């Protein structure tokens, strides 16, 4: 068995999108864990072991890939990135952020490309070939 990713995090408010995305990632068997957060706030709490994810004396979870939706209620994808960028740099190392969106607005892709910490921009729906391509590009040692 080849090396696997530790964790893939999905941040998306749509339950059915999450359901399908989890199924897809499970099917390619590239990661030990898959985490789903329905809001940006939820995801920040997950990443910092706070709120609902409060854990004492445990290492902060370090997902390898964050798939991030843009249009979410309350804190949207951009606002999440703003807050995320305030986390200590060591906790943001070695992970990639893929903006995954239905948005057909080219402005969104331009904005995403300007942000150093956004690695890739993809349109929904997520597909198996898309997952494989992302893994091959950013984690060639996996798979």
């Amino acid at each position, binding site marked *: 068995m080849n090396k696997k990713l530790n964790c893939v995090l999905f941040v998306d*408010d749509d*339950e*059915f999108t999450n*359901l399908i995305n989890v*199924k897809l990632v499970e099917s390619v068997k590239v990661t030990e864990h898959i985490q789903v957060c*329905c*809001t940006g706030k939820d995801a920040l709490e997950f990443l910092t072991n706070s709120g609902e994810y409060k854990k004492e004396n445990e290492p902060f979870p370090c997902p390898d890939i964050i798939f991030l939706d843009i249009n979410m*209620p*309350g804190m949207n994808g951009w606002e999440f990135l703003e807050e995320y960028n305030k986390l200590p740099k060591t906790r943001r190392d070695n992970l990639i952020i893929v903006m995954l969106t239905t948005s057909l607005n080219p402005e969104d892709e331009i904005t995403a490309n300007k942000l150093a910490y956004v690695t890739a921009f993809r349109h929904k729906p997520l597909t198996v070939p898309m997952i494989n391509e992302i893994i091959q590009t950013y984690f060639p040692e996996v798979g």
Partner: protein
Amino acid sequence: MPENNDKSHSQTLQRKLDQANEKVRILENMIEERTRELYYKNANIHSQNMEMMQYLYIASHDLQEPLRTISSLVDALKYELREVTLSDDANVYMGGITTLTERMGTIIKDLLDYSRLGREKVLQKVDCQHIVQSVLEDLHTTIEAANAEVNIGILPVLTAYPTELKLLFQNLIGNAIKYRKTDVAPVIHIAAERGPTCWEFAISDNGIGIEEKYQEKIFMIFQRLHTRNKYDGNGIGLAHCKKIAELHEGKIWVESTIGVGSKFHFNIPDKINNT
């Protein structure tokens, strides 16, 4: 000599007066021209707005047709599979298709309603007391279920669009109940205050409140602050409210503190140009 002096003095005055009159005339012309310009620009904006709403109406109408067919196809598929035992996942997917088809149906309906809002508006004398009473009757079950206390101040009789104004109250009172705290019964106050050229209304609650950074965003169409499993809805109510306030040439805004409550304000000017 003094006579001559007087004459030349009055001639000078007359010349100055003529010059002043000429300036006034030029200014008047400029004002007239600017007014005409503004009038045409305004009319232009109005007609563009109407056109936009027309597009929205047509687009949402046309979207409904394929959606209905999807619904029928899902029903047909379910019928074909009636004797087949589906896996749990397959059942979840089928349920998902139905849920999302219905959701899209309500989004399209919301868009249609939004585009048609104010289309057949009729300016009338309305008694806000009556309007609010009838809203409370409509919301009767919701109010009882939430154990909500609703206090109504003295509300005025004014000139407005009755159907739209009722919808405005309905949305704001409905929201005040919907976004209540889980452990505190909602207490809602509805009040009106006389402003210099308008009536200003306020609907306040002791609900969950709205973060400051979202206090403008909430009035935009399809903007929601919560996930659907927490508070259902498409994010259309306050967009409707904003459109209704603007139909009345008034404004709507909110003051709110997280964990304390929200106070929605809107005003209805005394003079509304019935366009």
